[in-house]
């Protein structure tokens, strides 16, 4: 086959998601018109998903360095030092579109993909998290999607044997036709044994390992970069099917291979499969690569070079081996019964050359593929700063206990147990704190060290004010980590937004990136990895923006951890970080405003004070380390009373709550002012002294009791059993209800 024989056209380029300008640019850089395979490779590499062409300009502004950072963005996952010669390797990634089309497989392969990003670097994955956003509870598709996504997340994670211990689940009409499924994986490796992807060593063998290549999800990367229309539902692009068994074997075999001193560099085949892995490995190393496509293990007969290069079949990796390591590697893969093939070699040509049946079928210079992807400075409308809703007009005339009950049984706050009980949270036997509280925490196997993990984002805040909302997401993640006693170390993020070609959406992106950057700098939690998912729109309706923050933290001794459960009576409960002004708490855009006042409006969210966040975090870590507190919970959605209710429900106790007469009680109870925690202590004197020393304002609000009830002031009483009933009822009831 001669390469010139098949010139492509602008129309073909457009079908692959490339603009006319981009097509011209490709032709200019090549000095000729690409053939179909070459155009496919360009379209994948230049897709939003791989090239970050709309967001790169802004992502560059994020803080990515710090003493703890070993590898920041640019590798398969971020790597941070956690002490004792160990490193944590982590990243979050989205699988939004595939999960909407086929919820089980979409979610499962999302988990599989993010796990490969982590073990590719030589780390053994130890924790999984998932941040989920679905449409309104009573939308006809919601239950189908919830049930498929949750069983898919569990289906993969449970089988491969990594505990799924955290995440979030939200419901909002803006996701009716465009759900968000973000998965995060965290792994552990020796800090001096991290594997990277840059190819080196002229002539070194390039091997393909894992499952065979089929026609799955061809052009998934481009699909993830295009707006969605209802028609796509019936077009039904091929979705990838996950094989967690193959994933598990590939993980074990890869880790064994990396321990055997055979590997120069390694990269998983994720979005855009063999294309992105081969291009990235060779370009990062400043080398070239030659691949004989006839050697690629394929599952179906008659696959074209185009299909082989763009297939997104799961559970595959590309490896550059040391010159004499082929036999050693082969033996490992035989043991695990996985496909293994030498498919090419490293060259120094700066070109990716593909051959089939002794003919060259593609020959592309790497530089333009990687470096000449357009970078857009897309026009944006700076979002206007919203006004807070008038607090007094939001306050309703009802007993605190009545409001509390309604809120706890609402979709915002109700228990997610139905979700996380479908996840194996205990496999690996290192889980110290599991789902149900703030951050989760796993022991670093064989040590006393602990790793805390969380994901957070309150999208209604971000919709109202992208800058404050993104700061808040970082602040809440920081508090969740802190509430276990751990020190926040670094973040990953998943930017889920609509179509960046619309200035209003681009404005959200810019605002959120700025807010995230400011918060990550101030709290010293640099961004070490991340993912961008744009074009989350259906028929022109954009989602509520969701810059999901994933964060990890470390604690030296798991004996110093605490969780949210108040299990003892007679303890004093304090709000840490309560200012006098918070007596009239921030109800604007709160759960209270939406559920109780029925005020569904993007009003100003509570502002974040980063200096206070840091100071309060330091105090909490001091209190946990000194064992001065028996339970800690951050105050976020729903405010202080909701947090207290969660603490006594978890510990099967109760509390007598003092209401002072000068408080505007609903604002005090349900305001969502930031930077606050609830703690329970048996030693109020020591606690007050420590707070004074740190210069942190605190307020004592309750004493715990064994009556399993919340007593609010003198006469307003609600049993925690009744509250638990409401809290636990909502999601199972939804899942069992009849469709509309």
């Amino acid at each position, binding site marked *: 086959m001669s390469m010139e024989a098949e010139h492509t056209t602008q129309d073909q380029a457009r079908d692959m998601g490339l603009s006319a300008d981009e097509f011209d640019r490709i032709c200019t850089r090549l000095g000729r018109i690409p053939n179909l395979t070459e155009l496919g490779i360009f379209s994948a590499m230049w897709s939003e998903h791989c090239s970050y062409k709309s967001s790169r300009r802004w992502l560059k502004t994020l803080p990515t360095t710090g003493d703890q950072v070993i590898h920041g963005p640019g590798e398969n996952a971020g790597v941070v030092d956690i002490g004792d010669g160990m490193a944590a390797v982590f990243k979050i990634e989205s699988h939004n579109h595939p999960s909407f089309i086929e919820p089980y*497989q979409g979610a499962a392969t999302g988990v599989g993909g993010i796990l490969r990003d982590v073990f590719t670097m030589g780390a053994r994955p130890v924790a999984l998290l998932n941040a989920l956003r679905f449409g309104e509870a009573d939308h006809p598709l919601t239950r189908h999607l919830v049930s498929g996504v949750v069983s898919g997340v569990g289906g993969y994670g449970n089988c491969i044997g990594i505990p799924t211990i955290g995440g979030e689940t939200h419901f909002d009409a803006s996701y009716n036709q465009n759900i968000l499924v973000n998965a995060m994986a965290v792994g552990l490796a020796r800090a001096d044994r991290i594997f990277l992807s840059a190819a080196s060593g002229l002539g070194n063998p390039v091997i393909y390992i894992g499952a065979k290549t089929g026609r799955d999800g061809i052009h998934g990367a481009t699909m993830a970069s295009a707006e969605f229309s209802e028609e796509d539902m019936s077009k039904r692009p091929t979705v990838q099917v996950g094989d967690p068994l193959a994933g598990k074997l590939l993980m074990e075999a890869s880790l064994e291979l990396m321990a055997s001193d055979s590997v120069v560099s390694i990269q998983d085949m994720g979005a855009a499969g063999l294309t992105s892995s081969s291009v990235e490995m060779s370009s990062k190393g400043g080398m070239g690569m030659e691949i004989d496509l006839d050697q690629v293990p394929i599952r179906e007969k008659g696959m074209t070079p185009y299909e082989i290069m763009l297939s997104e079949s799961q559970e595959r990796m590309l490896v550059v081996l040391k010159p004499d390591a082929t036999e050693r590697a082969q033996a490992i893969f035989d043991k695990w019964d996985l496909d293994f093939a030498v498919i090419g070699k490293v060259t120094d040509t700066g070109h990716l050359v593909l051959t089939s049946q002794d003919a060259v079928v593609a020959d592309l210079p790497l530089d333009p593929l990687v470096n000449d992807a357009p970078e857009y400075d897309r026009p944006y409308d700076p979002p206007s700063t919203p006004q807070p809703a008038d607090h007094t007009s939001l306050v309703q005339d009802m007993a605190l206990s009545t409001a509390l009950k309604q809120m706890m049984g609402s979709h915002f706050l109700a228990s997610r147990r139905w979700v996380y009980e479908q996840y194996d949270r205990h496999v690996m036997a290192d889980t110290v704190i599991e789902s149900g509280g703030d951050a989760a925490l796993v022991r670093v196997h064989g040590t006393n060290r602990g790793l805390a993990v969380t994901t957070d984002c309150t999208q209604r805040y971000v919709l109202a004010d992208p800058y404050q909302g993104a700061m808040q997401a970082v602040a809440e993640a920081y508090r969740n980590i802190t509430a276990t006693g751990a020190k926040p170390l670094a973040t990953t993020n998943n930017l889920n937004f609509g179509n960046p070609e619309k200035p209003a959406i681009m404005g959200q992106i810019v605002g959120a990136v700025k807010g995230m950057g400011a918060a990550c700098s101030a709290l010293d939690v640099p961004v070490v990895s991340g993912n961008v998912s744009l074009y989350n729109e259906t028929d022109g309706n954009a989602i509520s923006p969701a810059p999901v923050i994933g964060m990890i933290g470390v604690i030296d001794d798991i004996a110093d951890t605490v969780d949210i459960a108040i299990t003892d009576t007679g303890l004093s409960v304090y709000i840490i970080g309560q200012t006098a002004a918070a007596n009239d708490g921030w109800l604007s855009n709160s759960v209270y405003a939406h559920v109780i006042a029925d005020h569904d409006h993007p009003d100003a969210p509570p502002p974040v004070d980063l200096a206070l966040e840091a100071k309060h975090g330091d105090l909490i870590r001091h209190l946990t380390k000194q064992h001065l507190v028996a339970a800690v919970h951050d105050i976020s959605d729903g405010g202080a009373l909701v947090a207290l209710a969660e603490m006594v429900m978890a510990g099967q106790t109760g509390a007598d709550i003092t209401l002072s007469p000068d408080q505007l009680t609903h604002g005090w109870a349900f305001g969502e002012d930031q930077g606050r925690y609830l703690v329970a202590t048996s030693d109020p004197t020591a606690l007050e002294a420590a707070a004074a020393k740190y210069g942190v304002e605190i307020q004592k609000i309750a004493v715990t009791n064994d009556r399993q009830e919340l007593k609010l002031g003198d006469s307003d009483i609600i049993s925690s059993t009744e509250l638990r009933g409401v809290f636990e009822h909502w999601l199972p009831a939804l899942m069992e209800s009849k469709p509309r």
Partner: protein
Amino acid sequence: MLRVTITISLKEGVLDPEGQAIAHSLGNLGYHEASDIRTGRIISFTMDESNHARANQKVAKMCETLLVNTVIENYDIAIEDQAGDE
């Protein structure tokens, strides 16, 4: 009364990890004659309906809305009069 049998199979080209695992295990047990193994599901039920054409139409709708994952699966409907009915 009719007896309906729906046979659901994976579309061509869709990975069938279960089929692969079975093929592998059969090979280990010394059965090497089997190739191209595919797995599928069957759903059968009795239907309170007498007209075959009408039944077929209804069952197809059930398949599309609930029983079959048409993104990755094909289905085939067989309808016969319930045994012992005539």
